[in-house]
């Protein structure tokens, strides 16, 4: 059995899924079951293909017709395979989840449309990582953007959905334009638009052009990846989409951008200048830090998660940037280490962000709100959702031995290797990145303590939360799968790394695995720098926790526990006494006020006497810096310009003719 066959199966099932969605539009439940089932199946095929490719049977399919850009088709090397694996696994989980989740829309919006677009989206993503021709890639890439755009505006009657979608589609389109130029320029130098001819094309270019293309690609794909300041669309679009789609967009789609960044930088252009890596590091650090900081401010669960995606992409790119710096000094081993860390984090983030977004979806499903301030106490009402979400939170907060911790640890280690860089200034710069990364990690922990604590613990803050019930089984299975993977990929990372290494080896030209992994233990390349074994850690925890429990139960004999009220200083507590999400993050706002520029304002309606207030209302906003100072002006200028030009169409026929006359005379005089 070769991979080609399974890839074809993937395509066919996906298409059938889309078709069946339309065919069964009358029977919503059946429609959901069939179309999402098909999606799950095709994701399964995707997983098979990916595994086959990763175990060394490359895939290659060619479409049977010619275009001015040569033949279109699909081919997968190990890098593509790795990303296809991530995509497929998450897609699989999400597809299953969607069967239940789509109930949310029964009778409100067309399930058929959802199924159709969902399948199309999955296919598009699978194609993006496997397209073998620049133009074909652009086609599928943009198709992916458009299907996701249509999914974002799926709940189209909702307030503000249209504008969120617009922002998204416009930003991503701008990005694509730049990518287009870059890829085509490469094609011109490679004398072919097939990716097979692209690798190493950078060597043929003048360095100025090369650097220009680097910048174009970084901005272009950066837009999709959501790096600051190109992230503006992300916190609007991801929350706007149906939660299952958000999971895909945040978990997987942004990764396709990372995929292409790695592909283009390491494979096509070849990293030669150090400043490339430094630029990436700079931008990535800013994204990571600001991303998590904005995440801390949000009270909309899905926006929190969206911003945390910005943060994690930042972390991923920090890894990649480090790899680029090392590569530029031909420290191949270290580049390999950094790249492995990057790819691991790509995978891990896909899993825990998938779990978290699905969890958020479940909350939405059960309570019909995603506003933290209206939630609370769900851990008791939705036990399993709570646990799943908690696992996700632990992973993203890099609690050992969950997967988030492993990749973050590796990134730290690879940054620490900066001591081997010959250049002094660069050496001194990297520790700053370390500091920022550390700070980011800590803030991320705060962010998710806050999120989980406010949403799942203590008293419910509203009616909906009061009457929340556990979500359907399919949703639990889907999100649970992702959660389990968070643990597995963490604990057994020592087994995964060698495969990842095979992915990076051709890119950096050196295999790092042998020195990274020995037995259960992971250690960065240069021997005895430091070691860590998530596997053994897991065992220790598995032993220690029960031990503690047993001992503490034994010692002092059996004692009964009485259930009582929370300590309330004598006045009965209501849900309004609890700390809110805003209050929780308030200390940090005050600490980092120079970044947040908070605009708190207190309104008091006083009665006749100034001492008796009728009402005190407190509103608090964080200024969206980039939108206000970067994007708004551009739009304003554009529109003003347009208005100015549009004066020529004033309706007077004489004027119209005058234009023609002027043009004519002018041309005749110039070119006579």
């Amino acid at each position, binding site marked *: 059995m070769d991979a080609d066959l399974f890839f074809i199966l993937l395509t066919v099932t996906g298409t059938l899924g889309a078709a069946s969605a339309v065919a069964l539009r009358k029977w919503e439940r059946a429609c959901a079951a069939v179309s999402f089932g098909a999606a799950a199946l095709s994701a399964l095929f995707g997983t098979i293909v990916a595994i086959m490719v990763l175990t060394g049977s490359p895939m290659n399919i060619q*479409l049977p*017709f*010619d*275009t*001015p*850009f040569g033949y*279109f088709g699909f081919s997968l090397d190990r890098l593509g395979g790795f990303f296809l694996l991530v995509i497929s696994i998450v897609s699989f989980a999400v597809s299953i989840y969607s069967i239940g989740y789509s109930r949310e829309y029964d009778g409100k919006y*067309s399930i058929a449309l959802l199924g159709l677009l969902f399948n199309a989206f999955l296919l598009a993503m699978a194609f993006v990582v496997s397209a073998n021709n620049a*133009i*074909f890639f*652009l*086609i*599928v*890439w*943009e*198709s992916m953007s*458009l299907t996701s755009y*249509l999914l974002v*505006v799926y709940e*189209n*009657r909702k307030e503000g*959905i*249209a*504008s969120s*979608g*617009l922002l998204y*589609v*416009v930003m991503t*389109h*701008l990005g694509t*334009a730049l990518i*287009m*130029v870059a890829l*085509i*320029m490469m*094609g*011109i130098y490679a004398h072919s638009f097939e990716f097979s001819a692209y690798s190493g094309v950078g060597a043929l270019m003048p360095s100025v052009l090369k650097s220009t293309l680097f910048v174009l690609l970084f901005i272009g794909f950066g837009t999709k990846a959501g790096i600051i300041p190109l992230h503006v669309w992300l916190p609007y679009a991801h929350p706007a989409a149906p939660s299952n789609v958000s999971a895909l967009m945040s978990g997987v789609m942004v990764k396709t951008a990372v995929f292409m960044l790695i592909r283009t930088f390491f494979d096509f252009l070849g990293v030669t200048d150090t400043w490339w890596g430094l630029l990436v590091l700079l931008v990535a650090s800013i994204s990571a830090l600001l991303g998590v900081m904005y995440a801390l401010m949000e009270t909309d669960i899905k926006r929190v998660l969206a911003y945390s995606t910005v943060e994690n992409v930042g972390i991923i790119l920090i890894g990649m940037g480090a790899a680029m710096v090392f590569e530029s000094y031909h420290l191949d081993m270290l580049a390999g280490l950094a790249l492995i860390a990057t790819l691991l984090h790509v995978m891990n983030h896909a899993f825990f962000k998938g779990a978290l977004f699905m969890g958020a979806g479940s909350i939405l499903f059960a309570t019909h709100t995603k506003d933290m301030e209206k939630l609370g106490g769900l851990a008791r009402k939705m036990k399993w959702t709570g646990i799943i979400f908690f696992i996700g939170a632990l992973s993203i907060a890099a609690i050992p031995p969950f997967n988030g911790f492993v990749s973050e640890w590796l990134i730290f280690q690879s940054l620490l290797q900066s001591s081997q860089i010959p250049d002094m200034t660069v050496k001194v710069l990297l520790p700053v990145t370390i500091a920022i990364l550390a700070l980011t990690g800590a803030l991320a922990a705060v962010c998710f303590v806050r999120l989980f604590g406010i949403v799942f613990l203590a008293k419910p803050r509203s009616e909906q939360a009061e009457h929340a019930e556990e979500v359907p089984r399919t949703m639990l299975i889907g999100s649970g799968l992702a959660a389990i993977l968070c643990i597995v990929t963490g604990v057994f990372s020592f087994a995964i790394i060698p495969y990842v290494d095979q992915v990076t080896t051709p890119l950096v030209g050196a295999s790092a695995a042998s020195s990274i992994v020995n037995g259960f233990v992971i250690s960065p390349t240069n021997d005895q720098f430091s070691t860590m074994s998530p596997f053994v850690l897991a065992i220790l925890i598995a032993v220690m926790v029960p031990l503690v429990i047993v001992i503490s139960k034994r010692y002092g004999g059996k004692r009964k526990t009485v259930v009582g009220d929370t300590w309330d200083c004598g006045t009965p507590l209501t849900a309004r006494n609890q700390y809110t999400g805003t209050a929780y993050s308030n200390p940090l706002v005050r600490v980092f006020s120079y970044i947040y520029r908070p605009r708190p304002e207190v309104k008091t309606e006083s009665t006749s006497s100034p001492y008796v207030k009728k009402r005190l209302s407190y509103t608090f906003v964080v200024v969206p810096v980039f939108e206000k100072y970067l994007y708004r002006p551009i739009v304003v200028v*554009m*529109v003003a*310009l*347009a*208005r100015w*030009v*549009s004066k*020529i*169409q004033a309706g007077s*026929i004489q004027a*119209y*003719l005058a*234009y*023609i006359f002027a*043009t*004519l005379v002018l*041309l*005749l005089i110039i*070119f*006579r």
Partner: protein
Amino acid sequence: MMLEIMIAIPLVTALLVFITRSRRQMELVSTAGIVALFAVACYIVYDVIADGNIEYSIWYLDSLSAYMLFIITFIGLMAAIYSIPYISHEIKERELTVDRAKYYYVLFHVFMFTMLMVVISNNLGIMWIAIEATTLVSAFLVGFTENDMAVEAAWKYLIICSVGITLALFGTILAYASSITVLGESSDALNWSTLMANAAQLDPTLLKISFILIMVGYGTKVGLAPMHTWLPDAHSQAPTPVSALLSGVLLNCAMYGILRYHLIVSVSVPGFSSTLLLLFGLVSMAVAAAFIIVARDFKRLLAYSSIEHMGIIAFGFGIGGFLGIFGALLHMLNHALTKCLMFLGAGNLLQKFKTRDISQIRGVATLMPITAVLFIAGALAITGSPPFSIFLSEVTIMTGGLSSANYLAVGIYILLLAVIFAAFMYHVSKMMFGEPTEGVTKGELERSRFLPMGTLLVMILVMGVFIPTQLHDLLVKIASLFQVFP
């Protein structure tokens, strides 16, 4: 012989429609006529592809004309089919009497006839006459709904285009003059084939002036800025199927006129004509972009987008080189198909909402889901998003530009495309999404409208990833006219 038959068909159809009595009859006749026309045209096109150019008496068909022929007849077919539900709806709404409807169908077919004449006549003079004729006939179609706006639009259309056309005639004369020193006053000295054959000896100074006049003259009809001013008025006021025809086909016909001269001039004065084309192309795109941003009327929006796309085509030809030409040619077809789809969709909206004002149209996705899907798809396609066909042609042109190192031009081109995309999507998403407009009942109009629209969508979707071999070969053949080869 086949040619005479073909151009006879629309005239005969018009006549038959004229003598019909009931609505059903005229619909039947008109459909039959257009289908027959399309069939014959296809046969001829196939003929040209199979065994080369056709040239006798005043006719001349090479691959380029054949290509245009296909576009004209196909879009004509689509528009004619769509006309049936559209017009009958108008009649139902008491907007039209049956006699007016008949008048409409007659004009429609005569219009088709004039456009056919443009592309199959060898003699540049006759081509000019044909183009002028298209103006005169379509003027009535533009002013068809005889309210004040329509009349105004028609008048502007008539005057501005006639003036432009007159300049074009001047250009034609000069082109002729440039030839007499070589060919003497032979009556076929105005034949394109003859001129092309002797292009090298023609008097360059005269030709340059001639081409400027042609560029401005026919350019007016193509709708290149700053001669475009009539276009938004005419396209927004005409009955929607006619708008589709105007945007999709008529503009291409005028462009065809320019191309014929471009071919000659680029031989005798290399680079001159392409520079002009490139210039006008970019200017048109820029102006169109501005108007698309501030658009308030969705039919005008589409009209401006037509200006933009004519600009792109001109740009492509200006860029030149195989990819530039190939892209531009492909774009002619793609634009015709997509714009036709858009206008048909616009027709649905217009008849549903009874307004052309963007700000008064909300929640189409809820009210008319199918139309919404088609319209959004069309919008994405027209703004050059994959997987629709326009993307392919635009990228081809862009590649041509980059490989011929026109970095600045391409830079502007891309910037404008991006801006237009943003503006266009802004308007469209405002119309399609959100809470529906008050007092508009849910539900689609006649189902038969979706036959042509669906066909068009499928075509642009398929051609988005794959160019049929015949088409590919045909385009390569046309490109060879421009002395460029893959």
